[in-house]
């Protein structure tokens, strides 16, 4: 983060993320009436995939993902919400797990013996569910040296089974950290230095819009690094962005909310407060009026007025945030073994669910399977 001063909780937070299951307050899960029939999907070290009944505040199923090798990174759901595609094995393998049976139905080994390929979090499934696109950072492994190669997008058929190989691949820019499918199925967004749009079939670059090159003359270079392509339930992806507002008396660090409407392509970016608390990730409420952000605090942002609405401290760092389908509850995850349930209007804690085995969710996506 290009923050003016080192932030204590930033380092402390990562330290927390490094250590496994440490002293936490114990909270009894209240089995209150269900606000929505949502199921949550999250993962924890070293290889656990959890499906949680949000209303019951209870783990419904737990799968052990073979070959996860320590950590499950990005989680992407198939459009029918039956399969969870997971980036695992030190970012070198993508597996598809049937959430009902726990069976592995898809596997793509990105690396070969001659080439180590890592995918830095960026992963998507096309809206028809037929193709999966991964972002590949390849390194040729020669006997006595590494040779960095140009990145590429690799397209897999989701029905390719356990020996999936790319059916197409095409050149990609460096430093991409997120892929987002557009609902029309023809193109997708890649987020990195800038926001790029690519043709799914041909890999043709359709357009580039500024992030680093954001045409804001009164701001310093913005800083955005988002890990999780979560745009449900609205089809709008949001993320905090940090930059400094240039002022005569000295620059002022600001926090902005960027939002990208995947359907219309509308991209907006507006400061909502002078930086006063770090936010790791955000989610837009179903009515699109509020955005909720987490890190050491839970923040509610008035999206139309570009205003901070409310902020409450959390018991510890949370990285991941999501929202219930009816918009009444906020779900928190991404660190430790706690999944938090908060009242969206009051930002009050309603319950904390401890994952069985209590191991760390380290940067795993928190997904919602939306009730019909």
């Amino acid at each position, binding site marked *: 983060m290009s923050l003016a001063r080192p932030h204590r909780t930033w380092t*402390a937070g990562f330290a927390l993320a490094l250590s496994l299951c440490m002293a936490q307050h114990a909270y009894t899960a209240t089995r209150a009436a269900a606000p929505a029939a949502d199921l949550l999907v999250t993962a924890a070290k070293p290889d656990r995939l959890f499906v949680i009944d949000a209303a019951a505040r209870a783990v419904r199923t737990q799968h052990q993902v073979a070959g996860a090798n320590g950590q499950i990174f990005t989680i992407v759901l198939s459009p029918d919400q039956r399969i969870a595609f997971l980036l695992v094995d030190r970012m070198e393998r993508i597996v598809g797990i049937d959430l009902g049976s726990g069976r592995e139905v898809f596997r793509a080994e990105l690396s070969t013996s001659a080439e180590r390929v890592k995918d830095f979090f960026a992963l998507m499934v096309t809206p028809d569910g037929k193709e999966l696109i991964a972002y590949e950072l390849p390194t040729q492994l020669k006997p006595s040296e590494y040779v960095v190669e140009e990145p590429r997008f690799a397209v897999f058929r989701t029905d390719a089974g356990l020996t999936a190989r790319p059916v197409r691949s095409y050149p990609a820019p460096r430093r991409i950290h997120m892929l987002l499918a557009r609902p029309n199925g023809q193109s997708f967004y890649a987020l990195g230095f800038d926001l790029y749009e690519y043709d799914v079939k041909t890999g043709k670059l359709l357009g580039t819009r500024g992030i680093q090159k954001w045409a804001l003359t009164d701001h310093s*270079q913005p800083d955005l690094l988002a890990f999780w392509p979560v745009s449900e339930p609205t089809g709008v992806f949001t993320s905090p962005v940090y930059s400094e507002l240039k002022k005569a008396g000295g620059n002022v660090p600001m926090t902005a909310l960027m939002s990208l409407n995947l359907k219309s392509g509308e991209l907006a970016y507006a400061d909502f407060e002078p930086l006063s608390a770090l936010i790791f990730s955000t989610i837009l409420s179903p009515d699109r009026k509020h955005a909720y952000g987490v890190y050491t605090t839970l923040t509610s942002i008035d999206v139309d007025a570009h205003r901070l609405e409310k902020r409450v*401290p959390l018991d510890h760092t949370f990285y991941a945030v999501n929202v219930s389908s009816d918009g009444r509850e906020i779900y928190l995850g991404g660190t430790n073994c706690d999944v938090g349930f908060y009242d969206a209007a009051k930002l009050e804690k309603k319950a904390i669910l401890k994952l069985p085995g209590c191991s760390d969710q380290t940067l795993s996506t928190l997904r919602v399977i939306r009730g019909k």
Partner: protein
Amino acid sequence: MSIGVEKYWKSWAAALLLGSSGAGAAQGAAAVSGPELVRSYCSGCHQEQAGKFERISDIRKTPEGWVMTLFRMRQMHGLNLGDDVRDALVRYLADTQGLAPAESAAGRFALERRPNAQDIDLGPEIGVMCGRCHTLARVSLQRRDEAEWLKLAHTHVGQWTSIEYSASGRDRPWWQIASGPLPGKLAALFPFSSSAWNEWQSRPVRDLGGSWVVVGHVPGGKDFYGTARIERDAGGDFAAHYQLADVTGFAMNGDSKAILYTGYEWRGSAQIGARSLREVYAVSDDGNRIAGRWFDAAHAEEGGEWTAVREGGAPQVLAVLPQSLRAGTTTTVTIVGNGLGAATLPVSFGAGTSVTKVERSAQRIRALVTVAANAAPGMRAVSTGAAVGKLAVYAQIDQLNVVPGYAIARLGGGRVEPVSAQFEAMGFTRLPGGELLALGPVSAEWTSMPFDAEAKRTEDEKFAGHFDMRGRFLPSAAGPNPAREFSGDNVGNLTVVARAADSSRTLEGRGHLIVTVQRWITPPIY
């Protein structure tokens, strides 16, 4: 990073030290020539061509640099390497592909593992590109041509994917810079071929055997001095016997065993009193001076200075202890050096001083020195014959500086030892002309307080740790503390306060201390 790696480093912590692999085994590996070892252990991956091994023959590094590389060959590339072979390889590679003294000078602080040292300045571009994860000293302690600097950039991105995504990496096209203009710039700064290295290699090997005069300093503690007797064994390694005492006369005797890498890099493992110490010293070009830093084997941050000069050399003063005297006092002063013994030569401490009770040997003078109450403050020349040193005379202390002015301490706990921070209060007097005269360390009372409003709000001074009597900050245990906001770690942002009484006044000096999280891995060159 993973704890497994930390464990491996621990098992390699004794690398570079004599006896780390057992004498018998070392001799076995040492009996095989260097090139033969490289051929049998490395050429499977590093092809041999016309007497050169791919990559290996194109880089020069310090002994610590070679240890780090071999560690990676074993840890990441599966090279099966016993400690004895490793030690023989490091000797061979550091001797034949090392750095000349002039080349390692700027980065020595990193080899010496000095805590809170100022890193070298290579300009803003290299500073951000290469100085955010490790010191630039690590960079400056290698010599390569452009092609090899480029390969190192490939290694970084190929091995540490997040390098392009982490802070100060993602704000620029990191790879494009690292693989574009940077290798050429690094090669211009730190080239493989140099006249310094060519000249160094053609120098005769110095025999360090004999008797040496030693002076040293323990930060937060006392100055010490004495003699070292160094013997060279048949294999070319060294044993040293120390007879040392601090200024109060407390004996600090002990022994050391050392390897001399590259003809000047002394790496010793010493036992002094109950303490196991490491020695990272450099021998001067003429072979008559050995200087550097020693530190605790388990706590590299705890250590001090060391200078030894060969006994019997030209007359010289190595140290005057204490280094300052107050007007109107009488103090026993020790001069340590060479050629001090001639009873016919007078000993002078300069204007306004008088000397009684002089005891002297060739390496030491002890004298009772009285400074007149009206002696003018200022620097005095301390001399006997051709040997000249310095002594500061003062009437009062006018300023107290906390040194280092900025320090980092790390929480300890679990498998990771805490890292303490040692401060000293340095006194100064103001001369009539307005300039400050350094008086050396002053004993002080140590406390901490919040550095800013945020630190005050989170009560950092309550959680982060405490001072001992000699200016050492001992950090608390790591881990989430339920008593803190967000169950935070015991980190802190503190102002360090030193107070010293000087006649009727109390002087105060301040420094800045960050108490931060544990570091899992501390490689030999940080």
